[in-house]
């Protein structure tokens, strides 16, 4: 895969997926930086990985579960759960109206 040159539109799309709001200036800068960094990281394409299974965990562990019991001591009081929120109302977290659904 040839080194990709990131356009403003590319970056806008990624930023939208990442829930980041960037100014045009930031977008421009990041486009250049991504081109550079991803360009460097793209050297990985040269590696022959035919038939190689991905590793997503190195523990080798399997079947780690918890029993179906209520863990009272970890449960937070309502006050504690809300304690760091900027906006609360009658025990709820509050955000500006979400239009869908």
């Amino acid at each position: 895969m040839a080194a990709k040159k990131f356009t403003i539109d590319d970056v806008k799309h990624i930023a939208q997926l990442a829930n980041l709001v960037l100014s045009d200036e930031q977008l421009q800068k990041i486009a250049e930086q991504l081109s550079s960094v991803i360009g460097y990281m793209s050297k990985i394409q040269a590696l022959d990985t035919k038939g190689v299974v991905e590793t997503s965990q190195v523990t080798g562990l399997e079947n780690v579960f918890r029993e179906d019991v209520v863990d009272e001591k970890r449960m937070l009081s309502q006050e504690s759960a809300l304690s760091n929120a900027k906006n609360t109302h009658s025990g709820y977290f509050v955000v500006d109206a979400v239009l869908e659904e």
Partner: protein
Amino acid sequence: MLLDKTISELAAGLRKKEFSSVDIVTECYDAIEKHGKELNAFITVIDNTTALTYAQKKDNERTENTSPLHGIPFVLKDAYITQRIRTTSASNVLKNYIPQYNATVYQKLLDAGAILIGKMNMDAWGHGGSTENTDFGPAKNPWDTTRVAGGSSGGPAIAIAARMSAFAIGEDTGGSIRNPAAWCNITGLKVTYGRVSRYGTIAYASSFDTVGPMARTAEDCALLLELVAGQDPYDATSSPHKVPKYTQKLTGNIEGIKVGIPKEFFGQGLDSEIKKSIDIAAKKFESMGAKLIELSMPMFDYGLPVYYLIGPSETSSNLARYDGIRYGQGRNQFTPETMRRIMIGTYALSAGYYDAYYKKAQQARTLFIKEYEKALSSCDVLLMPVNPTPPTKIGELMSDPLANLLADVYTTSQNPVGVPSLALPCGFTTTNLPIGMQLVGKMFSEDLLLNIGYAYQQETDWHKRKPGILESP
């Protein structure tokens, strides 16, 4: 100074009542008062009256059965969740966050009677190797305050070097304990992935993150690891592997130990003074009975891409919870470096690019695992550098995003594989800047690494040197 002693020396002294916890903690706060602002290692300093009152309490409670850590002051990288004590991950996103629970590692230390005196400066979210990617001002290297302390666990390393704390818990995802340990002349242990519970550690890269001790000696690290290691029901990736009594395995004897020297790690790009110091250390190992073995690890060039594709991918997901609704400020408060990493990760996981980047990196990871297995089958430990250069000038790395990433070249392959590594002081440059090296072992070989470190530290005194800043009034 009391804080020149090892933890076990402090513990012994406390038991014999040669000095008190209050004495030790007072020394910490004196150092903080003298050098705190200048070095900028702390984000939150625990109120000293609170700490001293607590120290007094510990002195009163001490028995012959209390832990050696009882009454010993420590600091935490500000990535560790501490109930009721502000935790920021060095980011403005969490500048006012007061957690509602304790990290497992913190709880263990509290239960042992240790005394928290500060939450430490770091590269925000672990994103960095110099403690400059922080919203709380760059931290300074106590050996040269125009230079960086390393990162991302810079604050903890500074505190130990500058005698503001007896020990610290740092966090290593791609060198974040080893890098500042080497640049500040202290000892730091990147543990085997899963050795210590990650519950309550603000996540960077979930499959790379490790929780580890930082202190002045390998022996201290052994003592700390004994306490904090072990399976945690709150962390499904924590290992059920038995926790040995690491301190009891410190024989100081490394006769017959095979030390592998992978040639790719000593090639172009490594500062000559660092190379020289590690050569001398290797010869030291030889003189202690170890055998040096040259070998090749040709995957070397792919270490950075593997790390910098998987790490940001996981971080882009781990940082998604910071939406400002339940806690924290908005996402526009992320630093440019953090935004970059989020974007890189989002891109690498996105439709059409997943196979070429994320999947490819995870396949390369498998090859790295095989390579380390092969290398470690012909030797017991691998000797590698930690940093390619001595501590950089403040601002130098931050000015070039790619150069910033490339500085991690020696410490980014161990985390994807999961193997442990001990960073040890092994010399100084002609300008009196610290040089460190790392010993990498098989999974769960911390006992071996710590013993080699301990043995080395019986024969050398690099780790005992103190930064000049401490001599000044």
